[in-house]
């Protein structure tokens, strides 16, 4: 009967073992708080003045790169400018449901 019990180990636990094998550094606390904080911070776009100044110092000897097409560069390596801020344009097109 012992063997039978082992075989009916909750599928959830088996999945947990699989996940921890892939990501050994996964938080010790059960899946909860990390996601909550991520959920609360949705939409946050940071400008770090420390990164900005460090990048400025790094760039002193090099030519300043202009705002590239990749607007998602980490601020540490690229000096952000207001033009880099992604422009959110509203949908000017009518919904296809109404088409």
């Amino acid at each position, binding site marked *: 009967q012992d063997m039978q019990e082992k075989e009916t180990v909750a599928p959830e636990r088996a999945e947990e073992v699989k996940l921890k094998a892939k990501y050994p550094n996964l938080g010790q606390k059960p899946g909860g708080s990390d996601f909550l904080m991520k959920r609360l911070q949705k*939409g946050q776009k940071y400008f770090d003045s420390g990164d900005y100044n460090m990048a400025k110092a790094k760039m002193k000897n090099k030519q300043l790169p202009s705002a590239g097409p990749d607007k998602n560069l980490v601020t540490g390596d690229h000096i952000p400018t207001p033009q880099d801020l992604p422009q959110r344009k509203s949908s000017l097109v*009518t919904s296809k*449901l109404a088409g």
Partner: protein
Amino acid sequence: FLGAGGGNDIQWCFSQVKGAVDDDVAEADIISTVEFNHSGELLATGDKGGRVVIFQQEQENKTQSHSRGEYNVYSTFQSHEPEFDYLKSLEIEEKINKIRWLPQKNAAQFLLSTNDKTIKLWKISERDKRPEGYNLKEEDGRYRDPTTVTTLRVPVFRPMDLMVEASPRRIFANAHTYHINSISINSDYETYLSADDLRINLWHLEITDRSFNIVDIKPANMEELTEVITAAEFHPNSCNTFVYSSSKGTIRLCDMRASALCDRHSKLFEEPEDPSNRSFFSEIISSISDVKFSHSGRYMMTRDYLSVKIWDLNMENRPVETYQVHEYLRSKLCSLYENDCIFDKFECCWNGSDRQNFLLPPLCSIVMTGSYNNFFRMFDRNTKRDITLEASRENNKPRTVLKPRKVCASGKRKKDEISVDSLDFNKKILHTAWHPKENIIAVATTNNLYIFQDKMN
């Protein structure tokens, strides 16, 4: 399963599908909410691009007894626009999280639509006549030369092509620090609540510069945060009662007569957990993504990742019924966590009224919810039978009964079954709605809206 026999089982047929056919889905076209109005004549959808599309049911053609009226576009407008809060460095999505209709009081229709931060009251009105024959103006609007005006004439209203106009009548802004997940209109038809991750506010529909905070679960120290509010709804009949659900799988019922700030619940609904079954995923999959009162208010339904639960308001310690939506996913949680699907927020809904009996309040006997692979599920509470159907353009013939689907969890896959590993997890049905009076349902896939109705004899 439903449809296998029995005179009372509903046989669902394809009726219409709205939206683009192409597979390349633009983000803006992703449908984010679907809602019938109180009569069922209007059906509203909101999308990620901040747009609202309203469909209107055709008047029933008395000679065409084999089908109910079709839904055609009635109005469409841009409800919300993307914003950037410079003070908080916060990008505010224009995605419409919820639409809720007000009961109709006059010729116009009103609805509330909300994105993450701002709720708007929209008035949708019809214009089918216009004044003609102004005294001082030409028909094109230019002013007439005053010296040519020799007689007085009074403009008269003449018919014109129907024009449906949507205008924002109230904007309820700046009351939510966190992201709004729910709005619910009170049975008093004067107030409504809006809920974000940590707070719930009470508004009066006429007053935009003030709202009352009625629930605040923000801890003094954010490090101590353990749960967030996931959904909230007013009781359908008691204007002092509302419920809110949490990411930990609990539902709290609050009575606004008890105190101004309803931080202490009147009832706490929670199913005890078997500690031996606890895993890393337990809390995530227990998070309630939707809560809906039954029409009578005696029961409420909650949706968590794998199941639908029916609760009797008189019993807090466990649900009275539990229905497994897609239990076969329990052994796929690892990959569902990796592709983020485990965080998908499915909604659920009750059937509308039982057509045979308009005298009694509607019996909430069937519940519906979505799943993956464009499948959706229905559970009959009386017969305990369930059915899986698919929203697909392949079942395109009106009046042809939809074929039930079956997922093969393990072992040998039978013909016509689909194996779990073949399911398309990008095809999610998160939003469904049931007509309040008839057996007509609206099912939203990623960017298409399907309308199904029962087979009329």
